[in-house]
């Protein structure tokens, strides 16, 4: 404790680092800290408001309410599909043609269609829940109006008068007045000695009495109308088991990143600690050759480990891996980039233990940043190999075509070259110091 008290930076690191990793992990897994973007496709352009009894509810009001929870981007159907495929939006919400008319009629339950992304399944899940919540709130508003209208209708049936509901207007005589008229007719028939007809009217009177009593149950019965709008949620048709693919890609990234970075960082630092690096550098091997050897070793180690992990996933889980021919160069490239990143850390650190600790402490948060969706995290993740690595892994596991991996593969290639070059420079400068 005294040692820690005398080393405030170490104390801060010991407390702050686990907190940082935990926050990044939470952000990666829950997509917190930003509102997801959904595309809104409005195919019902006939009306802009919903008439419910005397009240008028606007669809735009509903959209604005939704916009408090998610970013809403109004797009055409094709544009929305493209945006979903490209990962620019997490879901597409479609208001179908005739939606307003169905809502106003009260005869057909109108349905909103939500298509969530397979590229970001956790985000898609969050969007689905947020929209369910928004639809529920809107349904509550509508239901309250419907219940109030139905109670008014029940009252009109009892007492009579003008009624307008679901867009229809009518004159209702009312049970009270009907009963009075029927009772008068019943009495007159008895006075005239038409007992048989009077008995028939007595049964009508009995029905009216029963109806009046039963209408007392109208309020709770009307309350049962709770969901005027239905939300139909489906996931995009293409892709395979998105949540499993996301998890496997994340696990693969974490495993390979740690192995690649720790192996190369530990390897170069161990050579330095054992003084063999100095022996190698005196004309036997140039710094670029030493770095290249570590990078290649990391690439081969990641290839072997990656194939074993993917093989286990393929055999033991329901996720079909496939695309083995593509996995081989991707794993080699990812391993090489992780290795080059590790060599820089190993070349700077003076001891093996320091190198391993630094590699671990740097790699973990950077891996989690690579998993967090969103522009800010994406920009950070793109300057280290973990962001493009994760994108490539996820595309190979989940997307129907692999054409989308090329930008990330190119990015991995560039980062490998840049980090290998930087590692050679760092090794040349630092290892002789």
């Amino acid at each position: 404790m005294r040692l820690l008290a005398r080393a405030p930076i170490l104390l801060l690191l010991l407390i702050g680092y686990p907190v940082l990793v935990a926050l990044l992990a939470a952000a990666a897994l829950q997509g917190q800290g930003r509102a997801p973007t959904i595309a809104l496709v409005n195919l019902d352009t006939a009306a802009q408001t919903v008439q419910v009894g005397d009240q008028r509810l606007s669809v735009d009001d509903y959209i604005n309410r939704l916009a408090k929870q998610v970013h809403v981007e109004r797009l055409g159907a094709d544009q929305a599909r493209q945006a979903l495929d490209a990962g620019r939006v997490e879901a597409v919400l479609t208001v179908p043609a005739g939606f307003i008319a169905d809502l106003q009629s009260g005869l057909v339950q109108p349905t909103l269609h939500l298509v969530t992304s397979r590229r970001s399944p956790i985000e898609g899940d969050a969007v689905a829940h947020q929209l369910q919540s928004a639809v529920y709130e809107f349904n509550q508003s509508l239901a309250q109006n419907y219940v109030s209208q139905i109670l008014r209708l029940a009252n009109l049936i009892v007492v009579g008068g003008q009624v307008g509901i679901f867009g229809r207007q009518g004159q209702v005589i009312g049970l009270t007045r009907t009963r009075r008229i029927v009772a008068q007719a019943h009495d007159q028939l008895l006075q005239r000695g038409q007992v048989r007809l009077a008995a028939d009217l007595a049964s009508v009177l009995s029905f009216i009495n029963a109806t009046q009593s039963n209408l007392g149950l109208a309020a709770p019965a009307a309350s049962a109308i709770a969901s005027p709008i239905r939300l139909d949620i489906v996931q995009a048709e293409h892709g395979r088991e998105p949540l499993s693919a996301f998890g496997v890609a994340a696990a693969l990234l974490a495993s390979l990143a740690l192995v690649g970075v720790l192996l190369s960082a530990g390897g170069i630092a161990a050579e330095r600690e054992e003084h063999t690096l100095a022996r190698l550098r005196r004309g036997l091997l140039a710094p670029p050759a030493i770095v290249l050897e570590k990078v290649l070793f990391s690439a081969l180690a990641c290839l072997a480990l990656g194939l074993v992990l993917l093989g286990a996933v393929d055999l033991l889980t329901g996720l079909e891996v496939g695309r083995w021919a593509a996995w081989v160069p991707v794993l080699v490239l990812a391993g090489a980039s992780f290795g080059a990143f590790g060599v820089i850390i190993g070349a700077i650190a003076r001891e093996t233990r320091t190198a391993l600790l630094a590699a671990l402490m740097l790699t973990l948060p950077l891996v989690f940043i690579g998993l967090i969706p969103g522009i800010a995290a994406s920009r950070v993740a793109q300057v280290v190999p973990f962001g493009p690595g994760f994108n490539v892994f996820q595309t190979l596991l989940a997307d129907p075509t692999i054409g989308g991996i090329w930008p990330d593969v190119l990015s991995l290639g560039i980062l490998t070259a840049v980090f290998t070059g930087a590692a050679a420079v760092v090794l040349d400068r630092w290892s002789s110091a």
Partner: protein
Amino acid sequence: MVEARGLVRRYRHVTALQDVDFRLAAGDAVALVGPNGAGKTTLMELLAGVDRQSAGSVKWGAPDAPVRVGWVPHSPALYSRLTVRQNLLFFARLERVKDPRREIERLLDRADLSEVADRPVAALSTGTRQRVNLAIALVGRPSALLLDEPSATLSPDQRLRLWQWLSDLRTEDGLALLFATQSVQEAERHADRMMVLVRGKSVFEGTVAQLLQAYPQGSSSGDAAEQAFMQLIEAAPSAA
């Protein structure tokens, strides 16, 4: 064989070596003597090509006839998890030695390492590790050997065996030796001449007899040479 001129090595805030000239001829045995921090290791690493000088030049042989140099660092530079044989084979292949296995057997025999050839370096004693360290420096049959305090961590009997081996290498193979040491006695015993470094500067170059002439003591015994060496250090300029 090697000629170094105006060597300077600066680190961020420290000048470890300042304007040092040095020459080593074929078959020479030269001792670099100086206290801790004098710049012996720095000069040795610049000559060995492990480090780069901030200024000055080092030339080993002629451009058309480069000299092969063996380097024995102060701490054994070995892969501790590999066996003695694996270490030798690894460096022999890097040195592009023809028939490396045969060369290794020769070195194992000469360094008296055959019995421990297949043991990991981590399991060896300090003295044996130093012999492996020296054996690796001899891979590729160098013409000159640079040794950075080779006997500093050895027991008296190990020290004796090491110097005997180095003496044999010099007489049988004609190797030139440059070794760093803190002991004037060791320099007197195993070197033809010595260079004294103090705070990065060369303050004396010559034989022990010349040192005693410059700083005369009561006798020419080892103690007298040490006392003369101490006087030389005290007389050296303090500012680096």
